């Protein structure tokens, strides 16, 4: 959203736009992601990569225990507990259920309309942006986020970077202080750089040219990221193969090989991140 747009369409902005809104019509990019839960092994490489890339603070045991961990991407781990017709067994015979959870960059983001100062808004690239110096710390956005992927700086964490650790900080991204909300940005600093490089050559960012830090580190390549506005990009092709699109409903699924789904789809948040179902072989 441009400033001008934001001011002129404030009322509409608060409602959150319709999918396919003209707001995006001219956009060359719409960033999206696919995470294959069958190859995700829950190893946490992506989590640490995010800490390194995005200047995330370490909060310590006591604060972590109060739920104040600042991991923009976290690996949620569930077990088969016998609910929902699952077998309840003496041992977890089918292993753990891992899901990397980060900001889903919703098209109809619940966090956006509740921000009193428009510090969070939707970019024309389809990103759910957070402007740190605009944020007043009302935390409305976090309360309205069904994925719980917004992280608030309840404290100043500068002690995380005990000297000389601060020399590691990524200069392309701010270090957020007390009172500011933050969240996964799809590594917007990398996108910015890639777009800049492409513009210098009078072209668009090519598929595979830019990787998010989590995707880059993933040992099994479970994460695919790219431009959904480009029909030939790998991420577009995967969305299509799994019959996924904005506005997709679970009922649209036609075959078992279409493994795509979106978390909490019933809330109509239209995330830009889709997951592919985990597979277990029952035939052994």
């Amino acid at each position: 959203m441009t400033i001008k747009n934001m001011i002129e369409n404030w009322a509409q902005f608060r409602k959150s736009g319709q999918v396919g809104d003209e707001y995006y019509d001219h956009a060359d990019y719409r960033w999206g992601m696919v995470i294959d839960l069958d190859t995700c092994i829950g190893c946490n490489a992506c989590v640490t990569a995010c800490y390194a890339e995005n200047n995330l603070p370490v909060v310590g045991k006591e604060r972590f225990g109060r739920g104040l961990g600042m991991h923009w991407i976290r690996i949620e781990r569930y077990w088969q507990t016998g609910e929902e017709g699952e077998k309840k067994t003496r041992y977890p015979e089918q292993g753990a259920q891992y899901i990397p959870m980060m900001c889903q960059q919703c098209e109809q983001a619940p966090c956006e309309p509740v921000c009193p100062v428009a510090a969070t808004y939707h970019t024309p690239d389809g990103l759910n942006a957070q402007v740190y110096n605009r944020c007043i710390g009302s935390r409305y956005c976090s309360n309205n986020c069904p994925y719980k992927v917004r992280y608030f700086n309840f404290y100043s964490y500068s002690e995380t970077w005990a000297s000389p650790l601060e020399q590691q900080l990524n200069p392309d991204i701010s270090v957020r202080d007390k009172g500011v909300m933050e969240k996964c940005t799809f590594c917007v600093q990398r996108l910015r750089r890639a777009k800049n490089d492409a513009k210098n050559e009078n072209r668009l960012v090519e598929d595979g040219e830019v990787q998010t830090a989590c995707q880059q580190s993933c040992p099994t390549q479970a994460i695919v990221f790219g431009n959904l506005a480009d029909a030939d990009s790998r991420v577009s092709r995967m969305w299509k193969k799994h019959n996924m699109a904005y506005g997709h409903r679970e009922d649209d699924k036609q075959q078992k090989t279409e493994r795509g789904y979106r978390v909490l789809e019933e809330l109509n948040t239209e995330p830009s991140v889709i997951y592919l179902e985990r597979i277990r072989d029952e035939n052994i």
Partner: protein
Amino acid sequence: MSFDPVNRRTFLKLMGVSGSGLFLTLQGCGNASLEEGRETVMSYIDPEDFVIPGEEVWYATTCHQCPAACGLHARVREGRVRKLEGNPASPINHGRLCAMGQAGLQLHYHPDRIPQPLARIDNRLQPVSWDQAKTRLHKILAKAAENPQRFALLSGEVGGHLEKLMDALVQTIGGPSRYVYEPLSQKIWHSATQSALGITSPRLQLAQAQMVLSFGADFLGPWQSAVHFAAEYGRFRTEPRGSLIQVEPRMSLTGANADWWLPIRPQTEAWLALGLAHLLASENKAIALPDAISQALAQYDIDSVSKITDLPTDSIRRLASALRTRTPSLILAGGPADGQVDGSQMVLASWLLNYLLGNLDKTITHAGDSPFAELETRIGSTAALQKLSEHMPALDTLFIYQSNPVYSAPDFLQLAAGLEKVRNTVVFASTLDETAELADLVIPLRSSLEEWGSRVPAYSPDQGLLQLQQPVMQALYPQHVASGDLLLQLLTQLDKAYQQWPDFYAYVRTDLMKYREQARPDKQPNPWKLPAVMTPPTYKPVMLEQAFSTDQLDEAFWEHTVAAGLLQLPTQQRSLRMQPQVPTIKPVTADQNFPFTLIPFPQLGLYDGRHANLSWLQEMPDQITTIVWDSWAEIHPETAARLKVKTGDIVEIRSTHGSIKVKIFEFNGIHPEAVAIPMGQGHSRGRYAAGVGVNPVKILAPVFERDTGELALYATRVQINPTREQDSLVKLAGSDSQHKRRLVRTINIKAPDFSHPEGSAS
């Protein structure tokens, strides 16, 4: 040709901003900006052309966080390394990097790094100047050379040119004593594999297997080469999807990703392996086993195996039938399966299964003969530490290089006491750890991102690989001497022949030149693959094909190798031969006073404890329990009920050789006769590590593997004694259940050939 690496790399003054905290108030829209006129902006003096302020430069180097030796690309901005990523050209990690590798940055910038040498003066470690430290070091060395029998050198797995120099130092002094110690040693696996296949490290091609059966080998975790096997696993799951079965007493990360996870009674894995071999051999007439083996296998009938392993006969039959129908498969053994008295036998049994299933030359192939024989990494062992502790009373001088045995060795070795009796203990370490604390002289090391080096990875899909390590930034403590330079200086003191190399850089470079001809693209069956384009492509290496058309071969070859971060030479692959051997395993006699088997498991994170002082890894949730910043003891809920304890209760875990107090964590993924405690915590030193959790290795009993003399890490029997204390565990997961929200969705499939419609992940 210049040998001066500092000039060559020209690590120049930083363009950065200095100044201390400024607190300004912006009133509305005044013209006052923030740092104008107050902050300094430094200019470079004479940088390399590709060094541009505000632009990143990527250097290829090698990861030192574990023995896997992954290739790295280090992102450098304004003269400082900011991010580590995998080197796409490396066949080890294909551009990927695990959490431990990422955290290498924190080790490099660690606030606990020792800024200057320390010497014991008045029984206290005190800072001394580098000159004083060197004088003292040279004096100690001179004395050691007079009495070589009373000198020893202990190190972790080093590899490459540093290994060569260390060997040279020990040989020049004339002592017999070079000890290579690695707490998570693969010695048992290597030695048994050597006796079965004639090579220590075959290539394990997970991606080619339709099924993988792993006995405790946590190949997605810290088993041998985590990132490499995870990448293989990614392909294994896609083209077409293979199935993974994991058999182990406590669920590892690999177990958590298995299609079928089987809890086996601890210390009985070999029985299952031989039971399966018996089932397969009796039905498969195609591969004839020598009579002696068939007869020996006869005693592992399904009923007794079921009784010993606590697995239902039905499960064992299902396993055997899956193995029969899904070929090729891959059988692996490691972790709790080979850390036993019969560990070698277990590994041999896994090879026997592979042999029976015809997996040799399909999923297990020859990795080529290493052209870098003299640079190969010497595999560390725990037996080395045992031998050292016996040797210690006879020692005057002990050098300990990058190893922390006082922390990682079991108490029964009484290493700390032994160390104190050694007159001169010189510890080469980057932070003041438990071992360095007892030293007489502490020589601070540069970080691996600040020095030259090389490494032949212990596990490599192709043995013709040498990983190269280069400094990616100016040393944080420029006066610190690089390890290689220091070793050369010490060697020069003893043998003037070493004067020919002005520094370690020259040593590595001169030595690698001998591979130049082999590396010529026209000499190779598969022409040299140029390193994949870095993202973004900043440092463009000289194209080798062009380079060979010029007359500057040396320079071109070197530039290319450094830019690529590795040297890959063609190797000859042979087909594998195996002589099946008669299995001889003995039952473990259980002492009823100690009803549980202790499983001190390593995680992809703190590893053997060397990463406990890195805050990213402390705050990284454990992959299974999601606990952070703590130690815990996993027991099955049935066991907990029997002992009348629950999660959070503090219990005493007692072996014949000590006890520790730790919080209980009830967990289904563990056999009821096992108790599992993660390795890595329980440090007394380090700002992020000290006082966190306990070290389960401390209470291990002196049980050793029969063939190799290695410490049997998973063979200690313990008792669990409830105390009345309680404490809470901090973990990420609020719930084990998804509460019907269907966040992670699973489809169960029946067909073995389900493939991902989008095809290969790579």
